[in-house]
C-alpha cells in the first residue's frame, strides 16, 4: 500500500463523505430505505411541480451541479484534515424543503451512477442519509429563524448544518449495524464521534455562505422569500422525525410500557378487551418475521398511515371551512 492510497483512505475517513458502497448493507435494509426514499422523492416531485413553473427546471439542474461542485471547496482544519460542505441544509434554505430534497437526491444519484461514489442497490440509503435527512433538517430553518435577526438566522443555519452531518452519520451507522456489517456498540459511537467534529466544518461553511448571500443578494434570502419557500417545512420535518423514531424503535426496550406493566402487576391485563382489529399485531409485519427490520417496517407503515389520515382530515376540514 503506497502513501497515495494511505492519504486517500485518511481523506475518506476524515471528511463527511459517508457514501455507502454496495455490499455493505443487507438486502432488507437497502430495500427498506429505497422504499422510504422513493416515496419521499415522489412527494417532493409532485409538490415541486405544483409550486414551481417550468422556469425552475434549469434552475434545479444547475443548483444540483452547484452542490456537486461546492463539495470540492475545502479548507484546512488541522492535522491534515479538511472541512468541506455536504450542502443539504444550504440547499433547503436557498430553495425550500421539497426542491432542496430533489436537488440533493440528484447529487447523490449522479455520484453513484457516474462516479461510483456510493452503490446502486444502497443508493436509497445514501439518498436518505445525505440528501433527504439533511434537507429536511435544513427546512426547519424557515420555521425557526424566518423572522429573526441576521445573527440569529446565521446561528440557526450553522447549528442545523452541524446537526445534519451528525444525523446522517447516525443513520449510516444504524444501517450498518442492522446489516450486521459492524457491531452497534462500535460503529455508532465511532461514526458519531468523528462526525460531531466534521460537522463543525459543515456548520461554518454554511454560515459563511449564507452570510455572503445575505450581504450580496438580500432579496434571495429575505423574510418574504422565506415565507414563499417555506410553509410546509414543519410537515416535512415532523414526518422525518417520526420516521427517525420509527427506525430507532427496535433499540427501545422490549419490556412492556408503563401501563402494560401496571396492568400485569395489578392483574387486570385479562380484562382489557382485545382491539376490534389488529393490522400489525405486536408491531411485526407478517412477511418479515420477528426481526428488528420488521419492527422498523411496522413503525414506518404506522407513521405513513397516521400521516395519510392527518392529511385527509386536514383536507376535509379545509373544504368545510371553504364552504361555510
Amino acid at each position, binding site marked *: 500500500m503506497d502513501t497515495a*492510497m494511505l492519504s486517500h*483512505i485518511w481523506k475518506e*475517513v476524515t471528511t463527511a463523505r459517508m457514501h*455507502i*458502497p*454496495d*455490499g*455493505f448493507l443487507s*438486502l432488507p435494509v*437497502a430495500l427498506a430505505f429505497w422504499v422510504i426514499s422513493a416515496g419521499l422523492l415522489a412527494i417532493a*416531485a409532485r409538490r*415541486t411541480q405544483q409550486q414551481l413553473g*417550468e*422556469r425552475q*427546471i*434549469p*434552475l*434545479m*439542474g*444547475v443548483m*444540483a*451541479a*452547484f452542490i*456537486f*461542485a*461546492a463539495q*470540492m*471547496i475545502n*479548507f*484546512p*482544519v*488541522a492535522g491534515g484534515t479538511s*472541512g468541506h460542505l455536504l450542502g443539504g441544509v*444550504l440547499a433547503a434554505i436557498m430553495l425550500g424543503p421539497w426542491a432542496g430534497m*430533489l*436537488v440533493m437526491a440528484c447529487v447523490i444519484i*449522479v455520484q453513484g*451512477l*457516474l462516479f*461510483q*461514489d456510493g*452503490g*446502486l*442497490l444502497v443508493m436509497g440509503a445514501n439518498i436518505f442519509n445525505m440528501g433527504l435527512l439533511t434537507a429536511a433538517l435544513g427546512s426547519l430553518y424557515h420555521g425557526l429563524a424566518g423572522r429573526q435577526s441576521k445573527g440569529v438566522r446565521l446561528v440557526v443555519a450553522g447549528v442545523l448544518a452541524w446537526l445534519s452531518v451528525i444525523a446522517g452519520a447516525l443513520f449510516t451507522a444504524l444501517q450498518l449495524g442492522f446489516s450486521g*456489517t*459492524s*457491531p452497534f456498540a*462500535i*460503529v455508532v459511537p465511532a*461514526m458519531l464521534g468523528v462526525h460531531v467534529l466534521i460537522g463543525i466544518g459543515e456548520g*461554518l*461553511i*454554511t*454560515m*459563511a*455562505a*449564507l*452570510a*455572503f448571500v445575505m450581504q*450580496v443578494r438580500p432579496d434571495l434570502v429575505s423574510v418574504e422569500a422565506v415565507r414563499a419557500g417555506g410553509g410546509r417545512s414543519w410537515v416535512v420535518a415532523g414526518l422525518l422525525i417520526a420516521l427517525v423514531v420509527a427506525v430507532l424503535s427496535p433499540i427501545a426496550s422490549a419490556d412492556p410500557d408503563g401501563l402494560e406493566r401496571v396492568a400485569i402487576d395489578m392483574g387486570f391485563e385479562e380484562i382489557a378487551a382485545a382491539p376490534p382489529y389488529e393490522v400489525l399485531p405486536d408491531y411485526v409485519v407478517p412477511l418479515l418475521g420477528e426481526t428488528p427490520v420488521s419492527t422498523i417496517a411496522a413503525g414506518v407503515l404506522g407513521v405513513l398511515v397516521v400521516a395519510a389520515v392527518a392529511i385527509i382530515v386536514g383536507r376535509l376540514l379545509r373544504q368545510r371551512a371553504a364552504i361555510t
Partner: protein
Amino acid sequence: MLEGLLDRYLNRASFVHDLDPRVKVVNAFLFILSVVLLPDGAWIAYFLGWCAILAVALLARVGAGFVLRGSLVAFPFALVAITLVFTLPGRPLLTLQLGTWELSASDAGLVRFTSILARSWLSVQAAILLTATTRSPDLLHALRHLRVPGLLVTILSFMIRYLYVLVDETTRLLRARQARSAWSAQGKGGGSLFWRARVAGNMTGQLFLRSLERSDRIYNAMLARGFRSQFVTINPHMMRRRDWVAGGLGICVLLLLQFVAHFVS
C-alpha cells in the same frame, strides 16, 4: 484535482456499447442484487461472478486494468467492517496484545469480513462497467423508460450538462485562492480557523450566485429556441433481438451464481 472527476465513459465500438441502455441498467442492478444475496464464504460463486465481470470487460474492450483500478474506491469503507474480525465469536486465529487490552481475531469474523469485501468489490466493478459502456444521456433515457419520475430525470440531465462547467468554475476559484495564499517558511499563516472557513464560505456563496444567474441565462436561451418542457433524443432506443438475448443471458448467469452458492460445495 479533477483526476477522479473525469467522465468515466470509454468511447469504444463494441457489442456491449451497442446494447440498449435499459438492458445494461437492469442487468447491472440485478447483478449487484444477486451478489448481495450470495451467502458468506461462497468463494466459488464469487470467483464465477468475477469471471462474468472479466468476460463483459473483454467483450466491451474496456480492459481488466481499467475496471480493477476504478474498483479500489470502495476499499476505504472497509474500515467500518474490519471490527467484525475481532467481535464475531468463533475459533480464535490470532491474538493481539495492546497494553492491557486483548484483541483476538476469529475465523468466523474473518470469513464474514472478506465476504463483505468480495461482494462489495464485485458490485463496484459492475457499476464501473455500466458507466464505462453507456453515455450519460442514454443512461438517463433508460431511467425515463424504467419509470423514474420525469421531473427527476430532467433535473439530472441538466445537472450532468452543467456539471463540468461548474466544476471548472470551482477549480478556477480554488486555483485563485491558492495563488493568493503564500506559504510562509515558518509554517505559520493562513489566519484562524474561522477566517479560513469564511473564505471557503464566500467562495461557496459566490459559486451559488454565479450558478443562479447562469440558470436564468440558460432558461432564456431555451425559450429563445422554442423549448416546450420536453426533451427528444435522436437515438431510437428500440429493444432488438440481441438486447433480449443479452439480457436473458445475463439473468441466466445470475441464476447460475445463486445455484452454485447454495447447492455446490
